[in-house]
């Protein structure tokens, strides 16, 4: 199915809105009126409807099929959340209208904070970060501010295990830290001794994901936290995998100092083809004084929004108060589940991953078989050895069977990693079909039917795309054919 670009459908005359043409008083425009043409194509409403409906049909989505992307937590997105986020009392309020007129919004932020603090057993939460990576940035800023305030500005090293998400080293480097990798043990977990060996008076913090990116709960996490604290450093925990333990394990009990929580993963605010997300950060007692503005507190005349703190350590990391739309969705999700439902969801997520592992471990290679897995099942591609089929080929063949591929080649510590995260939203029926398909594909690959894989996908809206060409000769916007330079004769 092919859909032209909107610029190939519409033109500058067509418009899908009706607005009156008014006469302008240009005396207030200071001579800055637009003189260049916009050259912006418009679509009437029926044309726009069809364009965006047709385009959407070229997407895979969680509503149309399983999305077993490890580390992404693609779970069901309840529509009640969408409905609540659209109540005018939430969607049609301005961040700077008088605080007396938004008491319900502040109460909502307070309630969301209460849930997050209770589920993590931590002391403070900064709601404002716009996404996980932004939360990471804020959390590490808070750590930096705390170290500076303690006269420890000379601590310039951050420890990051090799299995970490790319955002971890990127964040640390962004703040001027030197990133020092920590090796993993052969069983896929971090060794407290390796951490101790890496700790020094230059180390400001460790950034650890738990459950880690191999899908394992770090069994020595409490000892690691203790060692980190003993060395005068802080423990930043990447909360991307909180879905495995919410309501079952409280990160605060493990000794973490800061952790971001992806509301768009754990609490089901929809991923929307790449956001918006929200990445609140919970903080330990030690870091709480370094939380940014704004935050909500109780005052004499109701709830107050603290937007300024003189000489505050962190100041602010975004305009306004963060992702209100996501707060509404997340709180709705929490209230729907209740404390009992959230714990059940985490347990089901872990159950599902272990079920996949159990059903496939005799066919696929499992790099770390020692522990039960948490909410992700990690395989590697050694079962594809000598088949002429790559991990990528295998993934593309899954597309032809109606499944989104799992995460591939991550974590980097496992060669040819295949990371499967079913989440709690998938039924046993779907898991069984998934396992059947995976097993059938693996069998077929081993049987030498490489062509099925190297040619895949053949049933998708597009066959494999030339990414090298895209990067070598970037075409990042549409140009009118007449505007393009003529091809050489």
């Amino acid at each position, binding site marked *: 199915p092919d859909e032209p670009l909107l610029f190939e459908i519409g033109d500058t005359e067509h418009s899908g809105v009706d*607005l009156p043409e008014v006469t302008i008083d240009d005396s207030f425009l200071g001579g800055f009126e637009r003189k260049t043409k916009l050259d912006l194509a418009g679509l009437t409403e029926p044309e726009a409807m069809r364009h965006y409906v047709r385009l959407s049909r070229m997407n895979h989505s969680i509503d149309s099929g399983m999305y077993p992307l490890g580390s992404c937590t693609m779970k069901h997105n309840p529509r009640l959340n969408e409905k609540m986020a659209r109540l005018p009392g939430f969607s049609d309020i301005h961040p700077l209208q008088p605080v007396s007129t938004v008491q319900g919004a502040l109460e909502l932020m307070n309630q969301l904070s209460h849930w997050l603090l209770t589920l993590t057993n931590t002391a403070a939460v900064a709601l404002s970060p716009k996404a996980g990576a932004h939360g990471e940035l804020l959390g590490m800023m808070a750590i930096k501010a705390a170290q500076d305030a303690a006269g420890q500005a000379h601590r310039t090293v951050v420890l990051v295990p090799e299995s970490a998400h790319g955002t971890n080293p990127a964040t640390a480097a962004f703040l001027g830290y030197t990133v020092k990798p920590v090796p993993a043990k052969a069983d896929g977990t971090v060794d407290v001794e390796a951490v101790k060996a890496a700790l020094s008076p230059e180390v400001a913090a460790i950034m650890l994901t738990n459950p880690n990116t191999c899908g394992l709960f770090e069994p020595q996490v409490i000892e690691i936290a203790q060692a980190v604290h003993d060395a005068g450093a802080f423990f930043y925990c990447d909360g991307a995998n909180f879905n495995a333990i919410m309501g079952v394990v409280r990160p605060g009990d493990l000794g973490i100092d800061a952790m971001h929580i992806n509301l768009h993963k754990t609490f089901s605010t929809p991923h929307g083809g790449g956001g918006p997300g929200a990445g609140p950060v919970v903080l330990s007692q030690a870091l709480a004084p370094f939380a940014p503005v704004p935050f909500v507190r109780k005052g004499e005349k109701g709830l107050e929004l603290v937007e300024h703190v003189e000489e505050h350590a962190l100041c602010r990391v975004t305009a306004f108060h963060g992702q209100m739309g996501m707060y509404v969705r997340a709180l709705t999700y929490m209230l729907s589940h209740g404390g009992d439902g959230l714990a059940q969801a985490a347990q089901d997520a872990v159950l599902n991953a272990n079920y996949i592992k159990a059903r496939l471990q005799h066919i696929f290679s499992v790099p770390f078989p020692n522990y039960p897995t948490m909410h992700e099942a990690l395989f590697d591609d050694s079962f594809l050895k000598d088949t002429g089929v790559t991990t990528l080929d295998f993934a593309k063949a899954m597309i032809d069977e109606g499944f989104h591929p799992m995460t591939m080649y991550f974590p980097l510590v496992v060669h040819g990693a295949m990371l499967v995260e079913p989440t709690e939203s998938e039924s046993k029926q779907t898991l069984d079909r998934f396992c059947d398909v995976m097993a059938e594909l693996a069998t077929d690959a081993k049987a030498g039917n490489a062509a099925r894989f190297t040619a895949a996908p053949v049933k998708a809206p597009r066959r494999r795309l030339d990414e090298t060409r895209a990067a070598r000769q970037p075409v990042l916007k549409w140009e009118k054919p007449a505007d393009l330079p003529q091809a050489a004769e």
Partner: protein
Amino acid sequence: MRYLPHSASERAEMLGVIGAADVDALFSAVPKSALKSFDLGLPAHQPEFLVETHMRALAAKNHAAGDGPFFVGAGAYRHHVPATVDHLIQRSEWLTAYTPYQPEISQGTLQMLFEFQTQVAKITGMDVANASLYDGSTGTAEAVLMAKRLTKKNKIVLSGGLHPHYRDVVKAYLKDDPDLVCLSPSPEGQGDILSQIDGNTAAIVVQTPDFYGHLRDLKAAADAAHAHGALLIVVITEVVSLGLLEAPGALGADIVVCEGQSIGNALNFGGPYLGLMATRKEFIRQMPGRLCGETVDADGNRGFVLTLSTREQHIRREKATSNICTNSGLCALAFSIHMSLLGEAGFTRLARLNHHNAVKLARMLGTVPGVELLNKSFFNEMTIRLPVPAAPVVEMLAQAGVLAGVPVSRLEPYNPNVENLIVLAATELTTHADIEMLAECLHAAIEEDAQ
């Protein structure tokens, strides 16, 4: 629980396949002291209608913008979003798709992003745009960092007309940087940024219309910056203005950052919003955020992919241009749908109607005794000075159901010079009756305050 597909018997069957006695066995790696060692004390799961009752009660405690006359702007604007936009973005295939890493089954999102990038490039008059950032404020900070990478120089000068929150975010991102110069607020529109530019300057940051509503001379700023080898970063918080005002790209801007909320996105109490970033072609490899590019598939058909990802954290890790990952995909979709419904004809009309209503507002405010309009120029927003402190007046009007704008003291609490100022905006939704009621209430409030 309505969201969890397993029945008790299915759970038991699955545990059997796994060979685990119970679900706790799957958590055997968790230290005993930490596993379910607590009573959360949180409420239990609830029927949908009770959750709805709870949320509606919270929503009802807020005064929605549509409930009465509304003039609040200052970086977020209340515009009409066509019903089609919100309907379409809720389609399963848009709403519940992931970042388009698998292009063969993500062509919808990818083509949309390519169209979005084209639209942003066109309205800003720049060569290229990225696939969105979180919002305008973080986008401004990213632009500053980008300018430093591009010029390998250090000094950054922020105009006194830059939104105070944006300034604060840049300060947080550049913490302790002695080369960051933040000029004082310039409510009178007299900010002098050009004299600050020197050979060490990486970029100057100019907002237009600025925080106080004044239109700034970008051409002069660009010329001055370029003369010293510095870049001009233009910040636009009201993207509708580009329908009426000259494109920054045509005036010499090097990087343009916009808050895109005005098109397609609701007020949402401040988020989620939409950061737009556009720049010159030669700068793309230092641009943060996702980029979508055109290519072909194995059959030679046109298709789209995320590209130039060697700039990004999941490939470059600590060498990435930014740590950004999730951005504002769905807000970008809303923007792109609304913009495609507008087209050139609609976008131009919308901008003209906004200005038209703002002129009406300005003229009416001019008739209120004691109110002084500070702007010689504006698009849809302006600053007035009252004879009395502004915050109590705004509060008084709010109690009367009129949301009169933002007292500048809310954003600049330590600056006594701005205590009497209010920033107000009009949009296409502002009616004559709204303006009359504002003027009337303002008049009454000033008189009452004076007594």
